[in-house]
């Protein structure tokens, strides 16, 4: 019995060790791949030549799509911030998705809207559209008032009405930097055929915001937002850049991503009833391009920035992470036929297997590891020194990846001016593995439970708002 137990724990130890080595080697590989990408973008990002080129009419016109639901307090300012983005030619298509507050009245008042006949193409099916409005004061604004159908449905209505060949899906409560559209359009300058482009999302908590713009980027001193700041840096600065080189970028953020309208129409737009519609859309786009033999790129570029508020309470973080993971599980399950399918190239052979085994199953493996460790120590089947050394290496690697992300941020875009903020980043990189990581493991495990129960809801994402005084 004792011998069998020891053998079981030894096998468990080895399995977890191998999983750990494989996963972290892949992260290290992504990190290496991100270097040349980051270098190229860094060379072009703040170049006066390109800044000038990008502000000419050399770029294609873009429709900014903004779904809005119950945003009466902020809608007028949000729309103004979208209308005043620095870009030679863009329009804003706002969809009031059946708001039950005074969002529509506020829009009519602020922008002097008048109803026009619905002379727009309806290629994608959506919930019933009540009316279409134009503004007498801002010719580039189009407002669609429709029945509530969810974010994906609202975006589909906006895609139908968009005039221009490229569209950007934005959340009404996301703060886009004034020059972010220009930067996002840089791949056009490099003459690539583009299906979609992803930009960076950064954490606005703790930053000073004036008139819908981040005027002073800071790192929130509180534990939860602080840890998420480091997490976002890691995810965007090397995770997605590394995937660029592999050609398997599966996430174009729903809060800030550019798409070629023709491809969105070809895949039937956003899928309604999906809790992570952005990942689903990116995967379907990949499939479409692959199946049709279209060689259009879906790059991520690091310097166009949109700021979003992250949860500062455990309750909201729980909802968000559980929902994200539920979406991931749903997507992997729905697309399981693609796993290890060479027909789908990097997506089938690398990206989806990574998301399935390295992301989706990671909390399960981590939980088994923690439980096995505790049980093994309790039963005397695991050597204490080995356990301590393994935990130190596992946590050390996590810290190292975060520190690398901070280094990449420092040598390239350096958005945080104050020294104190850099120290805070290091501090959160150090403490992220103690508590925060375990917390997110629990939240993600909850997603498995919800999937088994068939729960498909979004949950409510409460925000503090940008007007909160900075914590620094």
């Amino acid at each position: 019995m004792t011998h069998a137990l020891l053998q079981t724990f030894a096998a468990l130890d080895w399995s977890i060790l191998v999983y750990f080595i494989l996963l972290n080697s892949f992260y290290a590989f992504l990190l290496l791949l991100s270097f040349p990408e980051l270098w190229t973008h860094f060379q072009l990002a703040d170049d006066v030549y390109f800044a000038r080129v990008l502000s000419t009419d050399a770029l294609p016109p873009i429709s900014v799509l903004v779904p809005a639901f119950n945003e009466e307090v902020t809608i007028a300012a949000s729309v103004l911030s979208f209308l005043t983005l620095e870009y030679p030619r863009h329009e804003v298509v706002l969809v009031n998705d059946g708001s039950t507050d005074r969002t529509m009245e506020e829009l009519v008042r602020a922008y002097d809207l008048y109803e026009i006949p619905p002379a727009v193409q309806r290629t994608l099916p959506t919930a019933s559209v009540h009316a279409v409005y134009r503004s007498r004061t801002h010719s580039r604004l189009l407002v669609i008032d429709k029945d509530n159908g969810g974010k994906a449905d609202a975006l589909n209505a906006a895609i139908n009405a968009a005039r221009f060949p490229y569209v950007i899906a934005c959340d009404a409560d996301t703060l886009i930097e004034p020059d972010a559209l220009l930067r996002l359009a840089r791949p056009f300058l490099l003459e690539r055929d583009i299906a979609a482009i992803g930009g960076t999302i950064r954490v606005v908590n703790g930053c000073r915001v004036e008139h819908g713009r981040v005027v002073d980027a800071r790192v929130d001193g509180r534990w939860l937002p602080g840890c998420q700041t480091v997490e976002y840096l890691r995810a965007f600065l090397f995770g997605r850049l590394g995937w660029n080189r592999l050609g398997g970028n599966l996430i174009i953020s729903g809060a800030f991503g550019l798409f070629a309208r023709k491809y969105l129409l070809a895949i039937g737009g956003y899928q309604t009833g999906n809790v992570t519609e952005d990942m689903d859309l990116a995967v379907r786009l990949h499939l479409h391009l692959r199946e049709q033999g279209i060689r259009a790129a879906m790059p991520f570029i690091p310097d166009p920035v949109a700021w979003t508020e992250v949860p500062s309470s455990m309750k909201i973080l729980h909802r968000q992470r559980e929902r994200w993971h539920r979406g991931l599980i749903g997507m992997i399950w729905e697309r399981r036929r693609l796993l290890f399918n060479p027909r789908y190239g990097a997506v089938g052979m690398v990206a989806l297997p990574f998301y399935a085994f390295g992301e989706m199953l990671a909390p399960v493996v981590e939980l088994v590891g923690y439980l096995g460790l505790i049980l093994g120590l309790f039963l005397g089947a695991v050597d204490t020194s080995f356990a301590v050394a393994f935990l130190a290496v596992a946590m050390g690697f996590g810290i190292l990846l975060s520190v690398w992300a901070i280094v990449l941020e420092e040598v390239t875009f350096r958005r945080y001016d104050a020294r104190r903020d850099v120290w805070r980043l290091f501090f959160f990189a150090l403490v992220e593995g103690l508590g925060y990581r375990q917390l997110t493991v629990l939240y993600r495990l909850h997603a498995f439970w919800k999937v088994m129960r068939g729960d498909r809801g979004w949950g409510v994402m409460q925000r503090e708002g940008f007007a909160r005084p900075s914590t620094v």
Partner: protein
Amino acid sequence: MSLLLVLGVIAVAQAAFAAMLTAFVVVRRERLLRRLAREETGRARLRVPLAQWLVGSGTVEPVVIGMRELPDDSALAFASELHDTRVPRALHAHFGAAMRGESWVRWSLAGVSSRRWWRRLDAARALGIVGTHVDADLLRPLLGDRHPAVRLAAMQALAAVDDPGLIRIAVQRYPAEGLAVRQFTTNTLRTVWRLAEEPLCAALMSDASPLDVASWLSLAELLNLPSLRPAITARVTHPSPEVRAAAARALRRYPHEESVDAVRALLDDPQDYVRAAAAQALGALRAVDVQPQLVRGLSDHAWWVRFRCALSLALLGESGRAALRLARQSPDQFAREMAAMVSGLADGAVLELADG
């Protein structure tokens, strides 16, 4: 070596590496801040001599001397910015000649055949500032560089080098370039239009592929050189709809009776995007005589044709607006809806949409 020892070594190595990276960030930040402060001081020192030179009360020599205090890459960035945004065109040659022997120029031009694209980019930029006709051979390979950023800077340097052979190459390469490089080529060709006229006219009349001809037509539209109008007008009867549409779009910048007559015929073209381009051009040409055909276009089966016809009617002044008001009572639903949508637009909005 036991597994435990391996893990221990890895843990210690990780800790050392993380500490090293942290130290790197801290040291680098301090050095960067010091360098930025030094550059700022250097730039601040340049302000007075620069202002004096720009208003004609000083010479360029103090500026040249002041720039020596900047690192080579900063000096190039400073000179590029200065050259493009503040130095009057009349002083460009003088500025370039004064900078020619400087170390940052030698450093930049040394990158002309580098394997690194950003060094070739530096060379192309430097040629844009200090280049003259003797640099044609240096610039030629950069015009065909494999990196679009380098080609873009090289196209801008064309104006400084001012060589007829290179201008011909730029015109011939135009259809193969991406949007941004085209934009810069266009800007450059505007400044050396006398050298661009002949090769562009020849290109327009050539038997090249329809897509190439359409690209040259769009270049002709942007350059707006009266001598090109006959060549553009001749292309409205081209068998390719791409070329016909491009010709219609180009002619909107060439107000002339012959332009109106040529474009009017395209309102009955079988291709909807050609009809849309023709409708747009007729609005831009303020072709009041064509109003009945534009009204008829409000019932076209293609949305874009109806939209362009409505906008062009709105551009035709009071008679066009009256026609739109009348169309709001039309028995045709398409015409009624489009007329209602465009009639509600303010004049500024009509101009903006019509030009888009």
